[in-house]
């Protein structure tokens, strides 16, 4: 332990104290940061802990090794081995009690001066202190001192010899006669007492490891090896010992001491410290010179002495307490996996805990469980709204919430689905409005043309404009301006339909956007409304809208300025207005204001400034294109836009693709990006043509969505989804899984049971009511033989399974409240698939609430427990 190479020792009994020894001994106390922050001289060790220097001892120069007395009393007693081979007992800043006083200052002096390499207190007989020394001719190199022994006869002689010591010693405190002398003619580099028998001492000698037995010092067990440095016993497995040589660690099993049971992968630099973790099985920490990492070896398996050829699993890990080089480290004796590390220079200390390898798993409901060491941690996404609204929720959470709010199920007011989805996603809003307009048009056209054009509506604008014919061109005046405009506008039936799909106009042959403008005004989308008005060549209306927007509550007064600029419109090619508008429009933040001026300043037919302004909604750009692009330009533009949308997976593009293969392609990109199979499934189920449903990709989304609902235990939602799906895709309807047939005639009992039983059948089962239908209800409709009896009430079963509420006569229907529906379910047949006993569903359920075994006497079937999933409660409400 030269001055530059520090070492750390934890106090064996004070969990908050440790000693750093380099050129002097420094005792530190570790504590939480908060408590010691006020005091001067504390050193932060980590975020939470700091160390306070309690005492410094520089009485013992030439320190080579230090060992802390293992017993509780006297506390803070240290043995220091010096370069001249002497061992001095010293203490640090403790009020000396009598025992301690006697011991402190005691010196143990070998016959010949040489370096003391190592010290080891006997863990049981704590009077015994073993010291390992360098070789001196034929002298012994392992000396075991008894610290309680009084001075030896030769004390005065030896005190002569040791005058070189700076400390003036009381001769009574010098001991020169060791209790045992071992390891003749050898050097000792490391020592440790074996925990399995405190009479055994393991020594790393020159070129061999030796076990000395104090009961018979003449004999030793030894094995020749180079790995003789830093011998240390595993505190959890007393037969396991680690030692090292250069960069290699050898692990020994004392039961088969002939060779190392394993050697760990060699490090490029020589090792300086190897230590078993005292709080954890089989964890060995190693440190090499000039390194900033501590390498850990996790030995999961106790090697067995019998010829087991399987290599124990060793997991190699490394931890980096800080950037600088590590001088030494020490495990905390009791805190789990904790260590203090001191840097090679400047005595920078760090306190940290080695974490175990953490295993983790996500549940289907987005909660994360992880295991660290022996502990489990459950981590759930906190549903706190508001605070975290900035953070976008994960799609899994979103889909769950949307499923619960019945997203996708509104088949009449289709656009409302976007509100069910939360109303915050512009893409979903666009998608559901598209589907709404498609549905509206489809229904409308259906009325007019008896359905032969219905598929056209769902095939998207891309296909609609492809077939455009009979386009007429018209030039209209700017209303509010006297000039004859030279802006050509195109009309055709297909273009009109496209505008309807864009939502600009409602039914009728005239293009009247006034309704649309009013709704935009209501939504306070002033800029957009103004742009739409302008595109309809109504500059006055556009200005009026902007004025309204400026004066509205929280309106933007700048809109007035825009209106002013707009009113100066002139179609003169070289006017200043034109020049300024085309250059300054790019500085407008709002894309709609921007495209307004782009429109006014562009040449007819060259509207790139409008068409490729990506911040403007697709529907507005498409509507614009339908109005102002010629038959040659329009399909080209639409195709280009469609491909762009498909690539980006932008749901606004559904307007163009419709529910066609193109639409599936687009949706595929969307699903690839978001994983939102819910939206994909529902939107594909909205169109009436069944073609897209046959696409394997669509089927795959639907299956995945159903699987999600199952995983979330949203079984009611899954069932609703299946019903919804079955309406559009009859092939997906599941086959009946159960038939109830008569035991006698074998006919299905629901078959031919066309007459809805009387309302009072609840009583009729018990024979109270004199209902004329009684015989029919409790017997097979085919052969009139009685149906099986309920195991509980012993009455014949009475309600055919096919009867469901709502199919009855209309007068009865009114009486069917929710309770009645439930009561009906109580009458259903139910039986155990295992023991085949059963009865009325209501009776069975109430029986199994209190019992586990079947109600039939002698039957030990635990019917309800057989189905574990049945015990799971659905997490959604119907």
């Amino acid at each position, binding site marked *: 332990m030269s001055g530059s190479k520090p070492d750390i020792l934890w106090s064996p009994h004070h969990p908050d104290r440790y000693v750093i020894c380099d050129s002097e001994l420094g005792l530190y106390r570790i504590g939480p940061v908060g408590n010691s922050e006020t005091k001067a001289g504390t050193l932060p060790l980590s975020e939470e802990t700091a160390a306070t220097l309690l005492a410094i001892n520089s009485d013992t120069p030439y320190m080579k090794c230090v060992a802390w007395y293992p017993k509780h009393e006297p506390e803070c007693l240290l043995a220091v081995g010096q370069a001249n081979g002497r061992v001095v007992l010293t203490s640090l800043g403790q009020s000396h009690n009598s025992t301690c006083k006697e011991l402190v200052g005691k010196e143990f002096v070998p016959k010949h001066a040489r370096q003391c390499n190592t010290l080891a207190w006997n863990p049981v007989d704590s009077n015994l202190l073993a010291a390992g020394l360098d070789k001196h001719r034929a002298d012994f190199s392992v000396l075991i001192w008894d610290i309680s022994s009084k001075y030896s006869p030769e004390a005065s002689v030896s005190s002569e010899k040791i005058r070189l010591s700076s400390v003036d010693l009381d001769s009574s405190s010098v001991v020169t006669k060791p209790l045992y002398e071992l390891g003749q003619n050898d050097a000792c580099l490391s020592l440790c007492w074996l925990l399995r028998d405190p009479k055994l001492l393991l020594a790393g000698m020159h070129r061999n490891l030796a076990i000395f037995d104090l009961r018979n010092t003449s004999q030793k067990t030894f094995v020749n090896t180079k790995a003789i440095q830093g011998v240390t016993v595993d505190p959890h497995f007393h037969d396991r010992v680690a030692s090292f040589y250069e960069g290699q660690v050898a692990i020994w099993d004392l039961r088969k001491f002939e060779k190392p049971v394993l050697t760990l992968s060699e490090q490029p630099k020589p090792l300086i410290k190897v230590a078993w973790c005292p709080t954890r099985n089989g964890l060995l920490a190693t440190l090499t010179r000039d390194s900033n990492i501590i390498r850990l070896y996790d030995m999961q*398996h106790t090697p067995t002495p019998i010829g087991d050829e399987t290599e124990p699993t060793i997991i190699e890990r490394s931890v980096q307490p800080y950037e600088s080089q590590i001088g030494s480290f020490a495990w905390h004796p009791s805190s789990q996996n904790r260590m203090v590390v001191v840097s090679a220079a400047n005595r920078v200390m760090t306190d940290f*805990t080695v974490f175990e390898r953490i295993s983790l798993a996500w549940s*289907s409901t987005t909660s994360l469980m992880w295991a660290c060491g022996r502990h489990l941690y459950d981590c759930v996404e906190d549903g706190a709204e508001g605070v975290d609204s900035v953070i976008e929720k994960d799609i899994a959470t979103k889909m769950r919430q949307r499923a619960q709010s019945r997203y996708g199920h509104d088949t009449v007011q289709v656009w409302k689905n976007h509100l069910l989805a939360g109303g915050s996603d512009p893409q979903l809003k666009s998608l559901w409005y598209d589907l709404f307009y498609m549905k509206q048009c489809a229904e409308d056209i259906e009325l007019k043309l008896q359905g032969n054009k219905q598929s056209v509506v769902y095939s998207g604008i891309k296909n609609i404009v492809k077939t455009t014919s009979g386009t007429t061109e018209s030039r209209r005046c700017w209303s509010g301006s006297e000039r004859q405009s030279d802006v050509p506008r195109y009309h055709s039936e297909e273009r009109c339909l496209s505008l309807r799909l864009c939502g600009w106009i409602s039914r009728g042959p005239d293009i009247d956007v006034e309704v649309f403008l009013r709704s935009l005004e209501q939504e306070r989308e002033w800029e957009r409304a103004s742009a739409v008005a302008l595109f309809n060549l109504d500059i006055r209306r556009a200005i009026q809208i902007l004025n309204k927007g400026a004066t509205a509550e929280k309106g933007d007064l700048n809109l007035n300025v825009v209106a002013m600029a707009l009113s100066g419109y002139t179609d003169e090619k070289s006017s200043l207005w034109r020049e300024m508008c085309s250059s300054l429009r790019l500085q407008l933040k709002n894309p709609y204001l921007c495209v307004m001026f782009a429109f006014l300043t562009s040449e007819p037919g060259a509207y790139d400034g409008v068409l490729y302004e990506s911040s403007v909604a697709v529907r507005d750009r498409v509507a614009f294109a339908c109005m102002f692009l010629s038959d040659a330009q329009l399909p080209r533009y639409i195709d280009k836009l469609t491909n762009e949308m498909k690539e980006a997976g932008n749901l606004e593009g559904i307007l163009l693709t419709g529910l066609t293969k193109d639409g599936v392609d687009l949706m595929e990109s969307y699903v690839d990006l978001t994983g939102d199979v819910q939206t994909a499934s529902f939107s594909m189920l909205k169109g009436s043509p069944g073609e897209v449903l046959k696409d394997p990709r669509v089927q795959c989304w639907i299956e995945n969505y159903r699987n999600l609902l199952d995983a979330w235990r949203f079984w009611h939602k899954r069932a609703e989804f299946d019903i919804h799906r079955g309406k559009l895709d009859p092939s997906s309807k599941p086959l009946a899984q159960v038939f109830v047939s008569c035991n006698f005639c074998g006919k299905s009992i629901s078959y031919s049971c066309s007459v809805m039983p009387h309302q009072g059948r609840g009583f009729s089962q018990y024979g109270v009511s004199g209902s004329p239908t009684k015989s029919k209800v409790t017997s097979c409709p085919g052969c009139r033989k009685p149906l099986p009896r309920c195991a509980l009430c012993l009455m014949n079963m009475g309600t055919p399974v096919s009867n469901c509420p709502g199919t009855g006569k209309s007068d009865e229907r009114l009486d069917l409240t929710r309770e009645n529906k439930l009561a009906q379910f109580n009458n259903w047949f139910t039986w155990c698939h295992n023991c085949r006993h059963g009865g009325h569903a209501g009776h069975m359920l109430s029986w199994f609430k209190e019992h*586990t075994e079947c109600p039939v006497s002698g039957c030990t079937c635990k019917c309800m427990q057989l189905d574990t999933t049945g015990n799971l409660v659905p997490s959604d409400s119907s």
Partner: protein
Amino acid sequence: MFVARSIAADHKDLIHDVSYDFHGRRMATCSSDQSVKVWDKSENGEWHCTASWKTHSGSVWRVTWAHPEFGQVLASCSFDRTAAVWEEIVGESNDKQRGLSHWIKRTTLVDSRTSVTDVKFAPKHMGLMLTTCSADGVVRIYEAPDVMNLSQWSLQHEISCKLSCSCISWNPSSSRAHPPMFAVGSDDSNVNYGGKVQIYEYNENTRKYAKAETLMSVADAVHDIAFAPNLGRSFHVLAIATKDVRIFKLVPMRKESTSTGPTKLEVQIVAQFDNHNSQVWRVSWNITSTLLASSGDDGCVRLWKANYMDNWKCTGILKGDGSPLTGSSGQPTAMSTVVGSSVQTSQNTQNGMSAGRYFLPPLDPPRAGTRYGHLLPPSSLIEHCDAEPIQPQQQALPHRISSRPLLPLPEAEGQ
């Protein structure tokens, strides 16, 4: 915002694996103490251990659930060179009332000559199939021909991977367009042995699994591997825990109907993060494969999330001992970390000391500005995203912040 809560696990040694069932209502843990524990979530959200039994004569590495369609079935694998299949049965006494369940061993799979390092059930649509991989580099695929009789398992395939296997993952895609596929990772630390992740695909014609791809760029030991839930996507995503977290995208090339060989995969690396500083031990996907969790030698659990443009970033860091964490906002506005009392008492010092070197990296500011406005098409998003720091810069973020404003320790600490 994630909130961690400790559960008294009561395992006598390290827990090696945690596994949820299909519904997330049951959980299994396995440990070096040679036991498996089954946990059930009560209605109030508490976890109760309902079964704990000795399963193997060595450390149990992994435990996994079969789809509930096949009943309540678990599989475990161990250092003792075996894998085992367990089924819950209805107990003789009223165990259910006492909140206990009973599990019996249906079979022991003893084909491996070395430690069985991972066990996984194949996706449900393939039937009841179980895969193991072992330290001797062999992947074994077993099938239960009769799902009602779990004691009969036949070894269907034995695939030699040449390298010691540490982990295996099935591609969960149920699409008919994707043939059965699994990835196997090796923890062999010799970087000269080439790629440590191999992908195998079932060939309908030969009825055998053939190697479709080796990820040569993964040369270091792989500790965990996880295919993301496919969810109808046209490609597969694979997360790998090696010396860093890596996310790969495997895009199946459109196959001509005539070709019989394995599907050509276009392999793209999507993200690579060395924020754990050292070895990464586990990776796990959430159900929509939009969130990835990883754990590493820095003692932290990190959450990763991709934005619209497939840029992955860290959205949360949780310390392994459940101590404070940030939400993805990086603003500890509602820091409500609950550290369970059981840990508080027993591990007080540890909890108090553990934060020595784990800091919260500065997270990106909340992307309030990039939340696209009304009916703005996402092409505007592209511009926003480009303006943000790209990934390499992110990785270079300092791991250390000396000031502590990000980490106000709750009062519970140190009590």
